[in-house]
């Protein structure tokens, strides 16, 4: 009797939780918190963030703060300097510069963010497939090689030239610009993502996860993706201002949004003729805001890069 009891003690059901403990997942909150604390310590990056919040706020609410719309013409009130009536003055057609400037901010930010997001998705898909398939048998190498040839050729083609060509033949408009900007814009992101994946998938923890039988999807989602987020976000903070710059550049040479829609680039172009007549507000407001936005994104991006880089903790 006694022996039988002992045997029952020896065998008992395995606790399922013990296998759960073997699952290795990086605590995601830790790095996030660290990044936030790091970036808050960087005064310039905080300033950039602050500027971006303010510009976004005015882009959303600014045009509605005044009783004029961006296209309302008033020939009795043309070329007015900034005053209580018209906070940023008026242009040659008597249009309110405040309304136009912040409406332009809407256009610029929309184009910047939309183009950057399309680049991100395209880059993740192409770069991800390419990087993950590389070195996985003949087929994998072929897929990687094929995608990389495309990327290589697109990378060699001058970016703005392609955009200009597309805009010459397409119907001008907001979405045309976004489309034209993203048709070749994703290449840079794809290269970065591929490089990251090639590097990350050789890491010991990925090999370990593979040997433990983790599925491809889970490896990508749990191990590869979280470790790339930093670089991807940093790249985004540089893609957005580049798209904004490209839009104002194109609008400036007359290929961007069409009149009467305002954009910072078209406003700067309109102001070219009057810069010598002393109407400083025509160039100052759009010009200053483009520069301020570029500045804010750049310092914020720099700060983010430093905050995410463990080597630059000093």
């Amino acid at each position, binding site marked *: 009797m006694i022996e039988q009891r002992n045997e029952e003690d020896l065998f008992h059901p395995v606790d399922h939780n013990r296998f759960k403990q073997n699952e290795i997942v990086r605590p995601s909150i830790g790095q996030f918190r660290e990044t936030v604390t790091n970036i808050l310590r960087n005064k310039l990056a905080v300033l950039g963030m602050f500027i971006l919040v303010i510009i976004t706020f005015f882009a959303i609410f600014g045009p509605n703060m005044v009783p004029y719309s961006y296209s309302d013409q008033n020939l009795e009130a043309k070329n007015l300097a900034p005053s209580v009536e018209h906070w940023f003055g008026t242009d040659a057609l008597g249009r309110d510069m405040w309304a136009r400037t912040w409406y332009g901010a809407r256009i610029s930010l929309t184009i910047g963010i939309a183009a950057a997001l399309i680049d991100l998705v395209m880059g993740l898909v192409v770069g991800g497939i390419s990087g993950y398939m590389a070195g996985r048998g003949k087929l994998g190498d072929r897929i990687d090689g094929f995608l990389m040839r495309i990327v*290589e*050729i697109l990378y*060699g*083609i*001058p*970016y*703005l*030239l*392609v955009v*200009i*060509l*597309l805009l*010459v*033949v397409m119907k001008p408009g907001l979405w045309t610009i976004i489309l034209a900007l993203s048709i070749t814009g994703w290449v840079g992101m794809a290269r970065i993502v591929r*490089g990251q994946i090639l590097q990350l998938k050789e890491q010991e923890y990925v090999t370990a996860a593979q040997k433990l039988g983790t599925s491809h999807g889970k490896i990508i989602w749990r191990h590869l993706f979280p470790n790339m987020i930093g670089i991807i976000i940093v790249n985004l903070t540089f893609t957005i201002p580049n798209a904004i*710059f490209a839009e*104002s*550049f194109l609008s*400036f*040479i*007359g*290929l961007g949004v069409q009149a009467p829609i305002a954009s910072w*680039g078209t406003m*700067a*172009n309109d*102001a*070219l003729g009057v*810069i*010598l007549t002393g109407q400083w507000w025509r*160039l100052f407001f759009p*010009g200053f805001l*483009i*520069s*301020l936005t*570029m*500045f804010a994104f*750049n*310092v914020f991006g720099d700060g983010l890069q430093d905050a995410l880089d463990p080597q630059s903790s000093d």
Partner: protein
Amino acid sequence: MYILKRFLTMIVTIWVITTLTFIIMHSIPGDPFASDADVLPEEVVENMREKYNLDQPLPVQYLLYLKNLATLDLGPSIESKTRDVNTLIADGFPASALLGIQALVIAIVFGLILGIVAALNHNGLLDYLSMGVAIIGISVPSFILAPLLIKYFAVDWGLLPVASWGSWEHTVLPSVALATAPLAIVARFMRSSMLEVMNQDYIKTADAKGVSTIGIVIKHGIRNALIPVISFIGPLVAFLLTGTFVIEKIFAIPGIGKYFVDSIFNRDFPVILGTTIFFSAILIVTLFIVDISYRLVDPRIKLSSKGE
């Protein structure tokens, strides 16, 4: 082997952009003589179509264009009856090239100086000052900076000519406006490259062996820090190239950039096609040369490697 492969990629890229440009240009409904067809007799329009090969089926037009391109003939301009695309480019090239090269030299020389000074004063006053200049240079687009330069240097202070082309004085403001952003990028790039190099063991070794600071900086620091900067010249040239579009427009300089922008407005398709291919070819060849010389300068990168 690597050079050959890289060369083939270059040819393919030029071919791809030619084809792409051709398809885009011909996907537009109507033809360049649509507006003339109302005022001119039908026979004249027919003759013009024939002259520009527009009466041929598209594949034939494409092959004709490729054939002409192989002999470096970019075809006639529709807008300008007397000058073809080749003469247009030949006319505009000297001004554009002078502008581009001056801007490139300004950007590289001052960018490097700024970057080196900043790196050697890491976290010091000079570092913050030069990086402040650099971040402003990146933030202010050239088409905002150029009108300001004209207003102050040309109009208010009368130091330099307002616009147009002629003497060397005419080239100063446009070159500066064109160079500012690339200068800032070079400065930032050089700074981080220099900081990294100065942390290497061989710098410490040289220091421990008693090499003077100037010797270390020049012989070991700058020389090694320059290598990654070389790889950046390609994108820099691309940047300058597209920059000339607005700068030549603002300063009314008769260069290719201005012709290109004008041809966009006139929808002069042969000129758009020709200048696009010309610009792309210049850029692609530059990228090729930079890539090869980069590998030659740095013995650590083997020419036979896959080119990551």
